[in-house]
């Protein structure tokens, strides 16, 4: 390199620029996904084709109108509408204000487990581990948290809730420990082991839910006892479902960020993740990092479980997660394994999920559209070259491709 490239402190402006650049692809991915979603809305409307022949102009205008309505419903369903907020504040009625905030509350509620599972997967990525088992770890965490939630009684909430949440973390951590120790001791690939442990977890949960003392009295279907109210995450605002689980999620993101970038353990995780040979040369224990990272990753997924059973359902069934653990993979990818990015990615996915139902009831466009949009977002994020190609963005000179995992063969 030439002399011009001698060491100089990075000016704050260029750091800002770097941040903007790292946001560019995800933002454009979302925009592109929504545009393709719009095309799908238009094309799935049969009358559009019938009218296209007769009056193309009006047909196109109508099509744009229906896209506008659908996305409008999606946005107001996820964030609430300005009109409702204004009316509610004008009325001064606390019930009405709470109702106005309901869409936002639903978004936060949907985002909460995704923050945890996104963090779980991202932490694994940073240590070179591909934890596909967040779903199973989530269920294990939910099971242990539920148990502490109903079996321990008579405690004040400020002891019971942390205890139940800690039990959830521990449950997930145990389920993460298994692939961790197997990889460290025998080299068993964590992808295979965690996939298999997902199935094991599902069956184990079904077994536990039928277990006398765990199953709810008088019920024959697999459902747990109801947890004590002292173990529940209190609502952020009385009358809304969004609860302190979301705040715990934010705290977890900060904690993971601190762990990864500000502690010796996190330094070891990342060194092992990028180059295990050099990590060993530097005196780090690859086995210890692997086990610990898998346990923390599992624990975070377990907390996702607590955010459901202690935040929404109050009890455990085998259907509490529609794949939050797998969405966590997408979120971690979208956020490039950065904890702060995960909050935003989880909020985006949460908003899509929360807005989907109102959109369906307002326009008749099926909820599945949102799943398609989510999938498109992931696709565009996973293929940055595609986005750069579409928008003709020049590749930055120092191509910082994130290494997520060592791949299958490692």
């Amino acid at each position: 390199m030439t002399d011009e490239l001698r060491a100089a402190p990075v000016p704050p402006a260029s750091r800002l620029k770097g941040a903007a650049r790292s946001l560019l692809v995800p933002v454009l991915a979302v925009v592109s996904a929504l545009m393709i979603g719009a095309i799908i809305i238009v094309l799935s409307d049969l009358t559009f084709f019938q009218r296209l022949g007769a009056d193309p102009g009006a047909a196109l205008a109508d099509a744009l109108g229906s896209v506008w309505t659908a996305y409008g419903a999606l946005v107001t369903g996820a964030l609430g509408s300005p009109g409702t907020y204004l009316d509610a504040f004008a009325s001064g009625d606390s019930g009405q204000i709470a109702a106005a905030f309901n869409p936002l509350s639903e978004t936060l509620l949907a985002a909460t487990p995704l923050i945890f599972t996104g963090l779980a997967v991202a932490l694994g990525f940073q240590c070179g581990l591909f934890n596909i088992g967040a779903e199973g770890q989530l269920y294990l965490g939910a099971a242990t948290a539920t148990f502490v939630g109903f079996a321990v009684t008579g405690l004040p909430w400020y002891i019971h809730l942390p205890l139940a949440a800690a039990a959830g973390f521990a449950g997930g951590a145990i389920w993460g420990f298994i692939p961790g120790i197997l990889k460290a001791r025998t080299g068993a690939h964590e992808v295979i082991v965690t996939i298999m442990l997902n199935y094991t977890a599902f069956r184990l949960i079904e077994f536990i839910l039928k277990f006398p003392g765990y199953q709810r009295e008088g019920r024959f279907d697999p459902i747990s006892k109801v947890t004590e109210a002292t173990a529940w995450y209190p609502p952020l605002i009385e009358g809304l479902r969004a609860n302190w689980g979301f705040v715990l999620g934010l705290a977890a993101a900060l904690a993971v960020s601190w762990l990864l970038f500000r502690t010796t353990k996190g330094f070891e995780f990342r060194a092992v993740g990028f180059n295990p040979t050099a990590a060993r040369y530097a005196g780090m224990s690859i086995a210890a990092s692997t086990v610990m990272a898998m346990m923390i990753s599992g624990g975070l997924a377990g907390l996702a479980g607590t955010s459901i059973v202690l935040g929404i359902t109050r009890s455990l069934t085998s259907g509490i997660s529609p794949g939050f653990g797998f969405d966590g993979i997408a979120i971690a990818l979208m956020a490039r394994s950065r904890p702060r990015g995960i909050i935003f990615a989880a909020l985006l996915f949460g908003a899509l999920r929360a807005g989907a139902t109102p959109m369906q009831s307002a326009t008749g466009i099926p909820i599945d559209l949102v799943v398609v949009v989510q999938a498109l977002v992931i696709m565009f994020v996973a293929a940055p070259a595609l986005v750069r190609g579409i928008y003709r963005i020049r590749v930055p000179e120092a191509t910082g491709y994130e290494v997520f995992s060592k791949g299958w063969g490692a």
Partner: protein
Amino acid sequence: MRLELRGITKRFPGVIANQDVDLVVEPGEIHALLGENGAGKTTLMNVLYGLYQPDEGEIRIDDRVVTFHDPGQAIAAGIGMVHQHFMLVPVFTVTENVMLGVESVRGPLGQLDRPTARRRIIEISEAHNLKVDPDATVEDLPVGVRQRVEIIKTLYRRSDLLVLDEPTAVLTPQEDEELFEIMRSLKASGTSIVFITHKLNEVLEIADRITVLRRGRVVGTTTPAEATRESLASMMVGRPVELIVEKTPAHPGVPVLEIHGLVVRDDRGHVAVDGLDLQVRAGEIVAIAGVQGNGQTELVDAITGLRHPVAGTIRFGGTAVRMEPRPIFEAGVAHVPEDRLEDGCVPGLTVADNLVLNTYCRAPFSHGIRLDRDAIERSATELVANFDIRTPSVFVDIGDLSGGNQQKVIVAREFSRPVRLLVAAQPTRGLDVGSVEYIHRRIVAKRDEGAAVLFVSTELDEVLALADRIAVMYQGRIVDIVEPARATPQLLGMLMGGSLPLESAAPAGASPAVAGGPAT
């Protein structure tokens, strides 16, 4: 083929990689392209090979202007390139690798026509003495042979001009010679060769003409008859360069590293170090000379705790240390590893992080489990300045630095803490003259501070220049320890090859740690 590059300019954001470069390669000429790392040699060749489009300038082949938009067009025009990192599929055979991309088929079902390809490979390999078994699987072949496969690949595609990008960086001295024979044979058959390197001896030995690049510009073109090592080195670096290491006689003190009866197995379970005894004292540089693969890697791994010995003892300063990397570091051992990208640094982490790769868990860089980012950054900024590491900032990913600068990061990290024993394995491999000179001076400075230095190299020049004692390693043992004054390249060459010269059957008892005779 006559190749002419005229006024090639290639800019990258913030950097001019090539500026107004002219280069003429005559038919049947070996043209050496010499320059430091980052001088723009590889960029220029990538422009020629169609991987980059020049911003200005033109390429002429046999006086016809050509433009290549991708390597396919360059290959079609008769240009073949052997990259520094081989482009081979390890699990394929030699024949399959050579055919890859230009497969010939036969029969109605379009089966691969391996027999015809195989015949042509044998023809090519016989014509140019490229000894290769066409049916061998590439992953089983040593590096030197893989390189021949790459050369065969280009000839199979009927290249008239061959670009060899630092071909000797990965070769042993014997393999170097074999490669030069192949190059002479190709030249005799009319093939032009562009030979990219920064090793001066090789250039003077093999090239017909030499073009020197510095910072993207042509500094000059000369011939081996007119040039000397010194003149080439100063052309490359832009200032006079000391090719001889200045050092005073050693004043050895107490033994720091004592090895007795060491036996180490390699990855495949074969005995690689076979009952080795060695002593390195404070204030001296002991060089391990030997052909690659005689147990040097395993010896260094054992000393640094990366590989557990089967038998024998290793003691540092008279005390036994738990043989794991961290306790060994803490005992004051610094290690510049053989493979800098594989072992020495973590691409993906910043320069600053790599500078504390093995000290991050100690004060002042951490308190408890909390990393002190300010202390790390301050120390990194200081080291970058002191060790002349060329990087835009300490927050740059080390993977984006040139090889020489990556090595400087490792050297800075290892040399900047109190060191009683320095183990440096091939510390200058693949580096340019300026960096080599620099690292040699640092090693001597460490010795003068009183550190014991164990230095492993396969390059005789370097061993002769740097060592206070030369321990020649052959088949896992130290066959002789030679004083540099007594050592000639001939003597060392014979010892490295396993033959003990008659007159030194009883080596002068100068060294306390002469071990076993030649292995049988």
